[in-house]
């Protein structure tokens, strides 16, 4: 082995094998793969919790679980999906694609990259372990509002430290992405030539660095309130339970953009490829993303319109929230303008991207409605909100992630996936996610609050429809796993270009790309990125 290493002037080509390859990996592709696999596992763990929720809500009356356990499912489902499925999937894609897209050999900080991934399984071991503890898993909602969260039993410190670890992991991932993009771009890859996916990720990384420490502070205050006699959030001790909500949502709102901005980037890569036309309004897309990110720090209190803010505060947050619709609208218009007069084909990534544009926009509409304070007093904490955030997170963020995986899977594996099965997967997902979530708008408007294990009989019908949609959506995702495994194991050889209309550095490499993407920096010209 040492003789082989001597043939090269650095030891970069040192490739450990077996378990060591994964445990000690400093390679952006291997770490990206681990992130994606981890995220898929979490998607199914979180998804099975959603199945329990929908089974209990299938009809009125309590059939399967106790209310306390139901609340645990609601809480842990959210934490697993947000921190375990969607965020790691985004980081996994960033790991795989950013070095390749900017013409770098690897990430700037490969050891830190390894650490930021390997924290995750331990963090989730802490969190999921609470399911087997006396008193059960956290059951106060993922938002961890005191005083309720302080009633958590032995699971409490595990919840807090799991959140701390997840924050540390995310911050390290974010630093790595910023360091990579700012230091390792190939000559000619100017900032305004960066692929949109890279742009959205830089902005996401800044959001992560700005917001994660705030969450860490908030949960630490919970910890000291519970065990060290402080009264940050305890009214009886001079504290303020609403303060927690302000701090939490100062993290929480940027967090929702952390989940969706990389999705915007993915869609901005995929639509031009399959429309065979450059992205319309590249610069305005970058500015719109940045505006959304900046505005996201000024809208947090729209999650808490009903806590009794002074009217001036409510007006400020209403105006700021409605304002976000403008840059978001610009992005949607630009996507539609990119399709306009293109020459479109409809492979699976494009189907998911088109569904994203429509369904995310529907989620955006309900978001605009929720932003109108006097009406939010009716919508708040109902199934209308549940429908809203599942439209933007499931048919939004998750659909974009699915699109990205179909889009880049041939590049990663060197094989084409089974297009026919993938299209079936798309249609099942698109139809049943709507059967699942669209009726929840009606439930919320009719007066059904969220996070209840049982409900009045007037809500029975739409709940049953929603549950059936949920089971069907859940089972359809097994097809996705099957397609991915099949593609990894074999299939039609993929070319380097993969898609006829694809542009950018990743398509200049072979499929699969070499272990160290660009050992010599490529020359990036305008023509390479353009049509």
């Amino acid at each position, binding site marked *: 082995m040492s003789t082989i290493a001597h043939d090269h002037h650095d030891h970069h080509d040192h490739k450990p094998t077996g378990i060591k390859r994964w445990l000690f990996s400093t390679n952006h592709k291997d770490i990206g793969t681990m992130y994606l696999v981890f995220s898929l596992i979490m998607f199914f763990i979180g998804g099975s919790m959603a199945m329990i929720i929908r089974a209990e809500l299938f009809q009125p009356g309590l059939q399967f679980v106790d209310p306390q356990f139901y609340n645990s499912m609601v809480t842990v489902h959210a934490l697993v999906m947000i921190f375990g499925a969607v965020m790691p999937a985004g980081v996994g894609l960033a790991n795989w694609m950013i070095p390749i897209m900017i013409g770098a050999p690897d990430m700037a900080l490969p050891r830190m990259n390894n650490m930021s991934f390997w924290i995750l399984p331990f963090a989730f071991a802490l969190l999921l372990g609470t399911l087997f503890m006396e008193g059960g898993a956290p059951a106060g909602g993922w938002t961890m509002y005191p005083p309720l969260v302080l009633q958590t039993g032995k699971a409490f410190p595990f919840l807090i430290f799991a959140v701390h670890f997840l924050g540390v992991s995310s911050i390290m991932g974010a630093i790595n992405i910023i360091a990579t993009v700012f230091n390792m771009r190939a000559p000619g890859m100017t900032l305004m030539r960066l692929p949109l996916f890279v742009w959205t990720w830089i902005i996401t990384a800044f959001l992560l660095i700005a917001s994660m420490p705030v969450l860490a502070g908030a949960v630490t205050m919970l910890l000291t309130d519970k065990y060290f006699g402080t009264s940050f959030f305890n009214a009886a001790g001079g504290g303020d339970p609403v303060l927690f909500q302000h701090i939490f949502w100062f993290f929480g709102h940027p967090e929702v953009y952390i989940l969706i901005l990389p999705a915007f980037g993915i869609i901005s890569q995929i639509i031009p490829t399959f429309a065979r036309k450059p992205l319309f309004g590249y610069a305005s897309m970058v500015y719109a993303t940045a505006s959304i990110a900046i505005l996201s720090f000024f809208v947090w209190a729209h999650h808490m319109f009903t806590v009794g803010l002074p009217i001036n505060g409510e007006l400020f947050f209403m105006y700021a929230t409605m304002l976000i619709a403008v840059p978001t609208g610009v992005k949607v218009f630009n996507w539609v303008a990119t399709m306009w007069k293109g020459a479109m084909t409809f492979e699976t990534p494009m189907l998911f991207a088109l569904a994203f544009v429509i369904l995310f926009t529907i989620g955006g509409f309900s978001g605009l409605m929720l932003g109108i304070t*006097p009406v939010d007093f009716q919508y708040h904490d109902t199934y209308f909100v549940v429908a809203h955030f599942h439209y933007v997170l499931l048919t939004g963020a998750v659909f974009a992630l699915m699109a990205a995986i179909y889009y880049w899977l041939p590049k990663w594996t060197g094989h084409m996936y089974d297009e026919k099965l993938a299209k079936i997967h798309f249609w099942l997902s698109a139809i049943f996610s709507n059967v699942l979530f669209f009726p929840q708008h009606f439930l919320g408007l009719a007066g059904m609050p969220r996070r209840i294990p049982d409900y009045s009989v007037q809500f029975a019908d739409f709940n049953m429809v929603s549950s059936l949609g949920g089971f069907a959506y859940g089972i359809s995702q097994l097809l996705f796993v099957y397609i991915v495994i099949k593609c990894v194991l074999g299939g039609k050889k993929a070319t380097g270009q993969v898609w006829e209309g694809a542009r950018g550095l990743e398509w200049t490499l072979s499929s699969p790309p070499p272990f160290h993407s660009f050992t010599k920096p490529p020359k990036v010209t305008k023509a390479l990125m353009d049509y």
Partner: protein
Amino acid sequence: MHLNKCMARFLSNFAVILSALFLLSPDILHAAWGLNMTQGATPISHDVYNMHMTSLYVCTAIGILVFGMMFWSIFHHRKSKGVKPAKFSHSTTVEIIWTLIPFAIIVSLAIPATKLLARMDDTSKSEITIKATGYQWKWKYDYINEDLTIYSNLATDSVEASQRDSGIDPKTTDNYLRNTDTALVLPVGKKIRIMTTASDVIHAWWVPDLGWKRDAIPGFINDNWTIINKEGIYRGQCAEICGKGHGYMPIVVKAVPEKEYLAWVQETKLALKSKKDSGDKELSMDELKTKGEAVYKANCLACHQANGQGIKGVFPALDGSPLANLKDRIPEHIHQVIYGKNNMPAFGEQLSDTDIAAVVTYERNVWGNKTGDIIQPKDVAAGRKK
């Protein structure tokens, strides 16, 4: 491809099962499909409904326009029709237009919203003041002007039907999970201020027909108001997760003419007074156990469970517990019901001496607890003085 076939068979079986489920469930066929927000019973709730519909129409119109463009493109600008892709990639004019138009739409929505919010915020000139306090898991209502306090628990038939595997069909239960033992009675046509607060964790007070909800937060008092125009019974429930009983703390508002309201206030005051005064009476074991069971269902069952086993690690068991079995701990047992302990709330204020005597007697003589202890109201009265 063997695997492919397996997957296909699996999917088709699944589709058959799913459609069978759809067709077999009788509820799907004849159903009350509530689609939209209620217009409600107050001037504000009508305005809120109108604002909701306005924003919905605006969004629908934008949606039709944008999705229309998109589908036009999908059908006409596709490679299979042999089109050559255009080359254009930006237009500053277009970007400015589609920034300004949405901005204008948003301003046009924000103006009426601001006016409506200002009206909802103005609690001045209220004639009646109610303070609603959330507890895990019930509501307490203080009629501030009348020196009257009532507690509102989930109705007992709903409690029974909502137990896991109760065998009772929720459809046969009167307003399942949306019915209380005591309604909040309010007069129509009066401006009523409703203040919300809580004693343990955050709750939210919500009756959709009044047009708003508001959090009930320990240490805070939030101010709201309503004028109910139509007599009737309006139902709602807690809207902020507040622990395992979150789904089980309904709100029932009964709006009646003012005369009826005043009569009800007098009647209720008298009834509460006589309940408090019955302290010297001696009751038999059977009387105490029957009454105790009802008190237990309304107040204790949510945590300590129907079988008295509690929930391990969260709510202690009563069945077989030393507190509910040892003779020398009777005073402590009574004390704990009156004053609470740790997460257990104090019941001394809302339960009469007779209620507490009954429930303590019940707890000591049910399940495996066979102490034979009889607690009389005067024992509870003695416990209060300590």
